[in-house]
């Protein structure tokens, strides 16, 4: 979480081909509202996960307890905070920070894997982080979001779950497990995460952030 130390030069911005609006000021200079919003979003997701665990997941998990490769199709749900944090804040470290705070909430609420959830949260956050870093925090459209969700799932599964939860599986099943996680990451975390940000930007709630500005600029263009 060396958020304060990573400094990116903001001068490389090109005016002609800039697909997404970037965060204001230096990329690494988090405003107070960036930090608080990322953290509160993560806690809100903690509430959503808690509700999911209480009202929805028991049904799914009973169905899939005997066959985790199918259960892995729900993996994307836990990756949403990382994608959302990155897409809203648009600063280096946003995905990791949001996912780590959400993982902490799960830890304190009680969960099935114990503190291993922090390791998962770290890998998932870093996965999204790497994808947005490759795009130099310039692209925050649907493709980037889906790639982020997918790669987050790859890092989580190849970096941890393959050696821990499913270490005894045959290689064929390990890859099926990976594939279902990646699909879930791309669709639930990526596509759904992108849709959520888009619908949030229609309210006033994201006005302090780049997606809110993008929405208002779209409105302006439409009215012209």
């Amino acid at each position, binding site marked *: 979480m060396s958020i304060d130390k990573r400094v990116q030069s903001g001068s490389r911005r090109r005016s002609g081909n800039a697909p997404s609006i970037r965060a204001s000021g230096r990329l690494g200079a988090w405003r107070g509202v960036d930090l608080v919003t990322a953290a509160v979003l993560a806690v809100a997701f903690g509430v959503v996960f808690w509700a999911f665990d209480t009202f929805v997941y028991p049904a799914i998990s009973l169905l899939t307890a005997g066959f985790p490769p199918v259960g892995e199709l729900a993996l994307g749900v836990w990756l949403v905070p990382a994608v959302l944090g990155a897409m809203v804040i648009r600063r280096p470290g946003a995905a990791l920070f949001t996912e780590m705070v959400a993982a902490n909430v799960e830890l304190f609420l009680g969960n099935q894997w114990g503190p*291993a959830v922090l390791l998962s949260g770290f890998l998932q956050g870093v996965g999204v982080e790497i994808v947005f870093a490759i795009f130099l925090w310039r692209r925050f459209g649907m493709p980037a979001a889906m790639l982020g969700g997918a790669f987050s799932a790859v890092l989580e599964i190849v970096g941890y779950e393959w050696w821990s939860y499913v270490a005894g599986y045959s290689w064929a099943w390990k890859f099926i497990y990976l594939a279902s996680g990646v699909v879930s990451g791309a669709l639930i975390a990526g596509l759904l995460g992108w849709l959520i940000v888009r619908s949030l930007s229609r309210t006033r709630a994201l006005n*302090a952030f780049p997606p809110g500005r993008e929405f208002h600029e779209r409105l302006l263009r439409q009215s012209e």
Partner: protein
Amino acid sequence: MTPTTGVRVDVDHLTWRPMGRATPILSDLTFTIEPGEHVLLVGGSGSGKSTLLRALAGVLTASESGDLGGTVTLTAATAAHPSVGLLLQDPADAVVAGTAYRDAAFGLENEAVPRDEMADAVREILMAVTFPYGLDRQVAELSGGEAQRLALAGVLVMRPGLVLLDEPTSMLDPVGACAVRTSLRRAVMATSATVIVVEHRLEPWIPLVDRVIVLARDGTLRADGPARSTLEQNADRLKNDGIWIPGLPAPAPLGVPRELCAPNRVLSAGDDAVTARRVGLTRTSVGLRNTGRPATADLVRDASVIVRGGEIVAVVGPSGSGKSTLASLVAGLEKPTSGDVTVTAALEVNGEGRPGWWQALALASRIGWVPQNAELTIIGRTVRDDAQLTTRLLHASTVGTATRVEELLGVLRLAPLSDSDPHLLSGGEMRRLALATAVAHGPSILVLDEPTVGQDRESWAAVVGVILAARDAGTAVLLTTHDPLLIDLADRIITLPQSGAAASLPRETPSPTRQRIIDSCGPLSLLGASFALLFGSFAITSVLHGVAGLAGWIVFFLLIASPKSVRWRRLVPGLLAVLSVGFSTWLLSRGQDPLTGAAAAARVAFFVIPGIYLAGAIDPSTLGDHLVQRLRLPSRPVVAATAALQQFENLANQWRQLQQSRRIRGLDGTRSPRARAREFTALTAALLVHALYKAGRMSVAMDARGFSAARAGNVPRTWAEPAPWRWNDSVLIGGALVVVAIPTILRF
């Protein structure tokens, strides 16, 4: 501590237009306030009073973007740099920590005050604001008025030379509001600080201020001068702006045609529409606090009320007496845990007379509800959509009903806003929209939780007009209120005694069992031990290794902890996970060897079961201290995360209220998986919107207490509490490493 010196405020051609608005909120404002002056800032709703305070506090751009012009200059009489304190409307937005001491010390931490000076400073300031409890009082157990006094202490502890008060009493009941004003008079008005206060109800503030500045609706300066004479000279125009000027008689309720508010199922006059007999509601709180058993709270106890068709019953009583809870029980939002709520035979659904048990559509058609937090009922994308939603669900054809919605919006002065996003409305407008949505589809019972809060004179008259018209048309109306003018209009009044949630929260009793080593372990050793086990588990390749390792853990566990401290229910998900891993590994491994499955189960059990136990021993509120002071993680993200964790319970409550308001508006009718998925997505989106607004208000409050300024200076932030590493921590880590060594040694 340096004595406070008043700050001089120079505002020069200040203009502010937030993004997405065509016209500025603040328009070319110029004025000067001398050091030590006490100023009351007055204006109709939407005139930019709160915005101006944020501009003076230098946090205008903390949570919003827009075009800012002109200058604000603050100068202190002495050379010291001028400091500003900002107190916001809702104390819940200012909470950053779990205990009173920690919360009040937040600004001192940001200003890098040495730790040993903090306790005295905080104690002194808590006394000055007449905070009734000690330093260790849990913030979650405070009433609204107490929480606001704590928030005031958190502002004043930084000795600001300019104190900005943004409707500091508008969320409080009369008793709490009076206590806060007394605290302000003692702790702020008596010092030499400059004070600017924004309030809707002016009378109680007139004696406390020297000067009044009036803002017009277009964000320009309308009047400025000595308090009483300025108000008197401008009385007519202020009245037209809807401002509650002291001394004027109550506005006459607007005449609203009865048909607009008539119920679909007309009750015979004098019929007991709904009866609550000795109802109570006890709830277990969903908290992140690990220690101790989950707290249960009696939100209301043994309350009884009868509402007849064609009458208004007002439920009054101090905050925390359970008025809102009683209202939500009568509205069928929740099932009472004791006593019962029943409706008259004419309203029963297939013989079921208890609203809490009805399907959503049946509930919506019979009962209308306006919640205290009106923003939580917003579902539609535009004001009109939102107002029509339930009508559309109940009647396939909207012919005829559409005009009723339009007329109601007109009466409630929302017609010009029909096509805008409901989230963009002001607090008072949102509440009127909630009233329109509650009345539009003609329910026979109306339950209104504080319907007149935040209304100016004109809109107050409209709201009351609608309520009276509904009553005259035969609707049974139950309302909770602190508004004396509204109480005067009620047909009957029920007073709930102070017995409330805040008072009856169970105090944590110290456990009689003797302290074991693990009880005083810090969060880092608990996490460190779990991670040692996690990484050690990779060495486990056979059942024997796993069983030997677990046996080693159990021996160590019995040495450092008491078996009584294990909460078995928490372990259940972990045990299921272990079984799932074992079974699926057997199924999907090469050759389907049962031993492979058992080894996998043992490997996962080795770190999951102890890990869940160790995680349960961590106190979330201390983790941040340790992460920064011991692990040297950057302080601002950790501080933000710690503050956000305090909001978990609040957000969990909002989730429940969002669910309830969808139900009483007729959604959530079916049990199909698709409907459930849609419901879940809608709730998630709604919760995120609230979380984002909350985060914006929190960052204003935190930045006003130096959260972001802490970055600018080179002095590192200080911490109100230390993060000690005790011998217990070393024992835990050492023991965990020994346990980890068992399977590793067996393997090689």
